[in-house]
C-alpha cells in the first residue's frame, strides 16, 4: 500500500471485529451437552430401576424407557436436521434438539396400570411409542421452531407439546375421580392427598393407604410403613414421570449440573419452587388435615414435581432474566402446582402451572431490575 492510498483503511484481509477479542469457554452447545449428559444419566437410572417390571401389556418397562428415548431424540434431531436442510434460515441445533428429546422422554408418564387400563390413557407401550413420537414432533416443529420465529420462546416446548397431545384425554385426567375407584372402594382413596376428597382417609391411617397405593403399582411388595413410603418417593418409584423414577438421582444429577454449569443455570427457580411446594403442602395439611409428611413427600417428590424443578422449570429461554423475577417465578410455580393437583385433581399439574408461569415472564422481566454500580 502506498502512502497516498492511506486516506482509507487498506482493503487488506485483516479481520475487524468489536472487542472483546477473546471469549469465555461456555457456549450454548456446551451447555446443552452438559444438560444432555445429565438427562442421559437420569434416563439410564430410570431404565435400570424399571427393568425388572413387566407391564400388563407384556412390555418390559425399562426397555420401554429406552425405546421412548431413542424415538423422542431421533424424531427431534431428525426433524431439526431436516428443517435445517429444507428451510434456509433454520439453525442447526443438534444438541438442543437432543436435550429436548430426552426431556420429552423423561416428562412422559409411564406405569400407572390402573389409570392406563381403566381410562385408555396411552401410558403403556406400544401406545406410548406413538405418543412420545407425536409429542417430540409437535414440540420441535410447533413450540421450538415456529415459536422461535417470534424472537424468543414464551412457553416450554416439551410441556406444551405434552399438554396439547394429551388434550383429547383431558376429561380423563382432570376432574374425574373414577380412576381411583379401586382404591377408594377399599378405603384407600388416592385423592386423599389431593384435597378435600380423601380428607377422612388421610386422617385414618393416611400413610398406610398412600403407601399401599404406590406399592400396588406393578405388584411391588406392599408395605405400609412411613419408611417404605420414604424409600418409594425418594429412592425408587414405579409410576408417573419417567424422570422421577428416582428423586434422589434427579437431585444428585441436577445439583451436579448446577455446579458444573454454574452461573448459567437458574437455580433460584428450583430453590424457590421446592420451598414453596413444601410450604403449600403444609398449608393443605393445615386446611384438610392428614399426615403432613405424607403430603410433603407426595407434592415434593412426585416425578412431575422433582424432575420439573431441576430440568424444566430452569429452561433458560422461558424463564425470567432477573434474580428476583426467577424467585417469584419459582414461588408462583409452586403455589399453582399444589393448587392444580389439589383442586383440579390433576396429577402432574406442574406442567400446566409451568405453562401459565411461562406466560408471566414478560411481566416478571420488569421486576428486579437493579440499579447500576454507584447509583
Amino acid at each position: 500500500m502506498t502512502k497516498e492510498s492511506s486516506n482509507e483503511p487498506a482493503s487488506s484481509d485483516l479481520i475487524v471485529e468489536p472487542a472483546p477479542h477473546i471469549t469465555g469457554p461456555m457456549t450454548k452447545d456446551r451447555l446443552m451437552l452438559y444438560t444432555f449428559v445429565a438427562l442421559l444419566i437420569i434416563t439410564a437410572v430410570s431404565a435400570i430401576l424399571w427393568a425388572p417390571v413387566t407391564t400388563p401389556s407384556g412390555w418390559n418397562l425399562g426397555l420401554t424407557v429406552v425405546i421412548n428415548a431413542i424415538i423422542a431424540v431421533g424424531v427431534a434431531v431428525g426433524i431439526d436436521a431436516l428443517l435445517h436442510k429444507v428451510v434456509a434460515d433454520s439453525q442447526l441445533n443438534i444438541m438442543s434438539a437432543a436435550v429436548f428429546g430426552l426431556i420429552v422422554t423423561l416428562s412422559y408418564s409411564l406405569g400407572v396400570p390402573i389409570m392406563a387400563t381403566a381410562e385408555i390413557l396411552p401410558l403403556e407401550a406400544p401406545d406410548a411409542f406413538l405418543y412420545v413420537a407425536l409429542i417430540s414432533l409437535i414440540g420441535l416443529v410447533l413450540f421450538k421452531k415456529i415459536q422461535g420465529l417470534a424472537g424468543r420462546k414464551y412457553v416450554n416446548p416439551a410441556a406444551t407439546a405434552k399438554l396439547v397431545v394429551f388434550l383429547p384425554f383431558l376429561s380423563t385426567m382432570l376432574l374425574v375421580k373414577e380412576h381411583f375407584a379401586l382404591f377408594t372402594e377399599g378405603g384407600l382413596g388416592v385423592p386423599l392427598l389431593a384435597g378435600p376428597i380423601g380428607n377422612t382417609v388421610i386422617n385414618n391411617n393416611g400413610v398406610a393407604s398412600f403407601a399401599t397405593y404406590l406399592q400396588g403399582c406393578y405388584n411391588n411388595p406392599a408395605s405400609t410403613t412411613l419408611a417404605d413410603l420414604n424409600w418409594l418417593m425418594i429412592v425408587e418409584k414405579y409410576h408417573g414421570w419417567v424422570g422421577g423414577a428416582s428423586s434422589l438421582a434427579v437431585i444428585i444429577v441436577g445439583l451436579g449440573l448446577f455446579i458444573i454449569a454454574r452461573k448459567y443455570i437458574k437455580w433460584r427457580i428450583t430453590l424457590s419452587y421446592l420451598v414453596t411446594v413444601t410450604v403449600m403442602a403444609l398449608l393443605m395439611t393445615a386446611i384438610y388435615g392428614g399426615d403432613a409428611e405424607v403430603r410433603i413427600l407426595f407434592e415434593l417428590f412426585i416425578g412431575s414435581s422433582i424432575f420439573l424443578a431441576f430440568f424444566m422449570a430452569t429452561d433458560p429461554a422461558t424463564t425470567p432474566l432477573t434474580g428476583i423475577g426467577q424467585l417469584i417465578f419459582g414461588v408462583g410455580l409452586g403455589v399453582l402446582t399444589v393448587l392444580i393437583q389439589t383442586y383440579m385433581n390433576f396429577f402432574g399439574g406442574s406442567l400446566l402451572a409451568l405453562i401459565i408461569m411461562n406466560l408471566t415472564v414478560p411481566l416478571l422481566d420488569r421486576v428486579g431490575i437493579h440499579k447500576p454500580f454507584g447509583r
Partner: protein
Amino acid sequence: MALLKIKEHKDQARKAPIEVFPDPKIAIVLTYQHAGAPNTPLVSVGDSVGIGQKIADSKEKVNASVHSPISGKVVKLGDTYNSCYQECSEAIYIENDGKKLKDKTLTPIPVSELEKTPNAVLIKRIREAGIIGLGGAGFPTHIKLSLPPDFPIKHLVVNAMEGEPYDTADERLIIEKTSNLLNGVRVMRKILGSPEVVIATKSNKTEALAKLTEVFSEEPNTKIVAGNFTYQQGDAAQLQKVLFGYEANPDRRSYERGTIVHNVATINAVAKAVFEGEPLISRVTTLTGDIKEPKNLLVKIGTPISDILNHFEIDQSDIQKVVIGGVMMGTSVPTTEAPVTKRTSSIIVFSKSKYKPLKRRTTCIRCSRCISACPVRLHPVLIFNAIDKGNMEKARRLYVKDCIACGICSYVCPSGIPLAGTICAERH
C-alpha cells in the same frame, strides 16, 4: 456480584525486558489521540521539526498537544487509520533525517527543586507535554490534576493492576523504571496536596511487587495493596470499591470522593516530562499474541505497526487480525499501516493458522449470565434488545451510558451475541 477470572497469558511477556525500538523512517503522528477537543496542526509540509517539538495543539481546555517523536521534515498531512477512534483521521507524516535534533522548549526541572516549583508550573508542564491517561481512556492528565479547591484529595491511587490479559507493558515499566515512577508519584502528590498514596497491583506480578516494595519503602504515607484481583477490578471505579469500599457515582468526578486514580504509565510520563523535559513521544507497548517471542517495546508514537512487524520478521501474510490496546477492550485495525498512538498499550497479533472465529452466533437463550457478570450491574441483554429494536429511550433508562466497555458480557455470552460491541457503540 462475583467477578469471574480470565486467563492472563502473560507468563512469557512479563519476563521480556523493555527493548528500545528503532526510530521509524517515517513517523505518522495522529493529531487527535486524546479524549477531548481535537487538535489542529502547527506545522506545514516542508517544515523541519526536532524531537519533542509540538506539532499540533488546540486552544480548548480539555485537550492534549502532540509532539514530533523524531527529527526531520514534514512530508505530508493526510488521513490515516486512528485506532483511538476506529476511523481515519488527520496525521502528520514526518520523514526522519537521522540527526536526532532535540527541541529544547521543555527544560528539565531538577528533582531537588520539585518542592520549590509552583503547582501551576507543574500542571502547565504536564499539559505542554501532551500527557493523557495511558491506561486506555486517554483523558488529559492535567485536567485530572487541576482540581477545584473545595475537594481535598485524600488518596492518590496508583493503578498498577494492568488487568488486560496479554498486556505486560505496565508491569515491565514498574520493574525497570521504578525510580521514575517514584518521582512521578512525588510530582502528583505535591500537586494534589500530599494525599495518601495507595499503589494497587496484583499479587501475581511478583517481580513488580518486590520492586515497588523496595523503592517505595522509605516513602511516607504510602501503602502498597496487592491482591488476587480480577481483570474488571483494574477499572478506576471498581478499584476504588476494592480499596475504599465505596461505589463512586458515574455521573460525578472521581475527586468528589477525594480520590484520584492514575495509571503507572501516565505517572512515568509525568516524571519524564518534569524531570527530563521530554514530552509524550514514546511509550512502552507489548507485542504479543501468536508470535514466538513476546516483547515489551519502548516505541516512538507514530511508528507504523507494519514497521514493528517487519522488524521482528513477523510474516504479515499469515496475520488474520491485529488488536491494539488489549484483547478485552482494544480494537482490531483494518490495516497495519496504522501508527502507534499514545494509547497503544499493546499490539496483539492473531495468526491465520491459529485464529479461531469467536463463538457461533445463535439466538439468545436468556441464561442471564451477562446480567450476573456485569461489573457495573447493568442488564446487557435488555440494553442490547432495546438498541436492536431502535428503542434508545429504553436503552437510556437502562443506563446504557454507565457501560465501562469492559467486554465481560460478550465474553461470557454462550450464544456469541456481540453485546459489548453494540452497547459500547451507543453509550455516548
